[in-house]
């Protein structure tokens, strides 16, 4: 009797271990907690179903921003990081300096069936440090201009195709905000004026539209760049001062002002597209759309970041070739299935998907997809990147400047001093 139990137990153990050997698990961390997180979970479950007897992704979603990136650092240091993770392209310079990421070699790219030609130059470059790849881009997520079609129609700001018109040029844009307000909105535009980190994306875009750059020749705000930053700040401060933009508004309030019809425009990331799509589906939203940021100054330019996949360089641990192959297979699968990821608003990084007929029929993505021709990413320094060192400096001076508490020129002077002091 006792012998029988032992025999059964041994048999069971043998069975479990053989199946474990045959099936590779891939531990995955991401920071996708919003509407795009739901879509990513769908992709992961599709992958697991398709590869039921070979690979299983075990995914965990962690808190976006500083908590995520701190946990990655500490876990890599003790060899407890996951097999793969999502990573912002803007954080890659810092990650490489900290030795957190494994290089993605040309052989890896061959194994995934992907190559440089499959990506837009700016996106590819964002994952490159000293000619080496450290991540595989999944998407590009720029900021865009959301608009309330009903209000714009009333204000006479739509062309015959139903798209907003007459927004180019700083003066025209301000006039358009005024018309939209006159058409019954409380504000022309909802701006995240209480959060400088967020507004950095808009301000940096407007700076770039004047040909300005944040970091050149190893210095922050060198040459005539301070004047360009001040002009961008002053433009936005002027909207608030004229009552066209909501003052001291935090992120959730900004989205709420727009979705409740109190603001005609909103500049926000494409990741809010699922929010609009879902509200509209439930009949709780007006007619809406999203377009590329208008050209307020000399040229078109929009800030973007990119979600990428990266493989942590766990200390004191080497990945088995089988596990490595499985991780590459997951990344490759995600690239080839990124059409569904586009429903989260993002523009897939994998070009064949963007060029497909299905993507070209997808709205509003197809409307703003041309933005990829004029994108600017974060400056390539370990000090930049989402939730990175420059964030606090920007926020501290952007908030008072946007709300008329601090003169833009004064703000820029302080920003320049503090940024250069960070080095």
């Amino acid at each position: 009797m006792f012998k029988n139990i032992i025999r059964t137990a041994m048999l069971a153990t043998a069975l479990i271990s053989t199946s474990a050997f045959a099936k590779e698990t891939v531990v995955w961390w991401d920071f996708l907690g919003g509407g795009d997180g739901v879509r990513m979970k769908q992709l992961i479950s599709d992958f697991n179903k398709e590869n039921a007897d070979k690979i299983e992704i075990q995914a965990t979603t962690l808190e976006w921003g500083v908590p995520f990136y701190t946990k990655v650092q500490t876990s890599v240091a003790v060899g407890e990081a996951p097999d793969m993770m999502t990573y912002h392209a803007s954080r890659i310079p810092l990650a490489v300096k900290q030795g957190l990421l494994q290089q993605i070699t040309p052989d890896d790219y061959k194994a995934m069936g992907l190559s440089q030609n499959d990506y837009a130059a700016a996106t590819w470059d964002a994952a490159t440090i000293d000619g080496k790849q450290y991540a595989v881009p999944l998407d590009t997520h720029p900021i865009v201009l959301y608009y309330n079609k009903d209000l714009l129609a009333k204000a006479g700001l739509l062309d015959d195709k139903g798209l907003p018109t007459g927004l180019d040029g700083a003066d025209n844009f301000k006039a358009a905000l005024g018309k939209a307000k006159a058409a019954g909105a409380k504000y022309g535009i909802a701006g995240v004026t209480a959060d400088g980190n967020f507004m950095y994306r808009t301000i940096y875009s407007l700076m770039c539209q004047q040909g300005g750059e944040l970091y050149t020749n190893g210095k922050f705000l060198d040459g005539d760049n301070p004047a360009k930053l001040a002009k961008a700040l002053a433009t936005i401060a002027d909207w608030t001062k004229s009552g066209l933009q909501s003052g001291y508004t935090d992120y959730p309030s900004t989205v709420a002002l727009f979705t409740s019809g109190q603001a005609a425009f909103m500049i926000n990331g494409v990741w809010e597209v699922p929010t609009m799509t879902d509200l509209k589906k439930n009949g709780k939203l007006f007619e809406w759309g999203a377009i590329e940021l208008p050209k307020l100054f000399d040229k078109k330019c929009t800030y973007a970041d990119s979600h990428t996949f990266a493989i942590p360089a766990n200390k004191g641990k080497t990945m088995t070739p089988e596990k490595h192959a499985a991780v590459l297979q997951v990344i490759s699968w995600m690239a080839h299935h990124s059409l569904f990821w586009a429903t989260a608003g993002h523009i897939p990084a994998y070009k064949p998907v963007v060029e497909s007929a299905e993507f070209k029929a997808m709205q509003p993505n197809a409307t703003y997809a041309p933005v990829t021709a004029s994108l600017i990413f974060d400056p390539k320094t370990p000090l930049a990147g989402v939730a990175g060192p420059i964030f606090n400096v920007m926020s501290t001076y952007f908030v008072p400047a946007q709300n008329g508490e601090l003169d833009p020129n004064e703000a820029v002077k302080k920003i320049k001093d503090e940024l250069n002091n960070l080095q």
Partner: protein
Amino acid sequence: MISKAFKSYWFPLVLIVPFLAIYGLIFIYPTISMFVLSFTDAPLIGSGNFVGLSNYARLFHDPRLLVALWNTAYFVILSVIPGAAVALLIALAVQRLSGRLQAAVMALFFLPFIVPVSVVYLIWDWILNYQFGIGMHWLDALGIPRVPVFKTVTWFMPAVAIITIWWTCGFSLLVFLAGLRAIPAEIYEAAALDNASRWTTFRRITWPLLWPVTALVLTIQLILQLKIFDQVYLFSTGGRPNDTVVMVQYIFQMAFQDDHGGRAAAVAVTLFLIVIVVTLVEFQLLRLAGGAPKK
């Protein structure tokens, strides 16, 4: 001789070893490491090169350290004594109640203390949010322009101090109540027989006899508020973090956002020394204020 001493010491030793081991591992060892780290240029994770006193030298020219020091001091001034005073007033009032009513009222005042800081943040953001806060509608109704409470330097610290008092005074209240109950009823009876007024009773009996408890509450509050972090961090998200920064938050920024482990450790050592000095000074002051030591 030695063996005799050993015989009488080995048993207590065995009993305190687990405590000593854990205390050494999670307190003494990290503290020493912090001092060592402050003399290196280490990043957040990993070791660095010895750089002598340069981290400290840099602190002298660091304008943000001054901002952090001032904000921390300002917060202590706004929260320690006012917080203790509010708790004492409530304790005196609650003490006049009796039975179930007293227990119920005490529970109501204690309730905020059990709420985690993230919930405190959400509740107050819900009230004071510039665009959608319910408190702002009251201002509108009264015809007062809205105030961006957590986004301007003027209002930030006072608001966070008031919220902290609301949140934590329940604990001080309990300590004060215990102190009040420890004062013998006979003394009050004797005072009543002498026709002492309520104010005289408080000034001559309650206040001096309660003094050791008051000193304890003030010391606990002082140490706690010098280490303020959570509320300030949460309320300043996205606002003006560098203008409203406090000491512990500065350490956090430097270590976790700017990736400077060594420099962060130097700030931490500075705060460590400040807490020790301020606490010692406060203790001496309280001792003097409570009358000469009765020997």
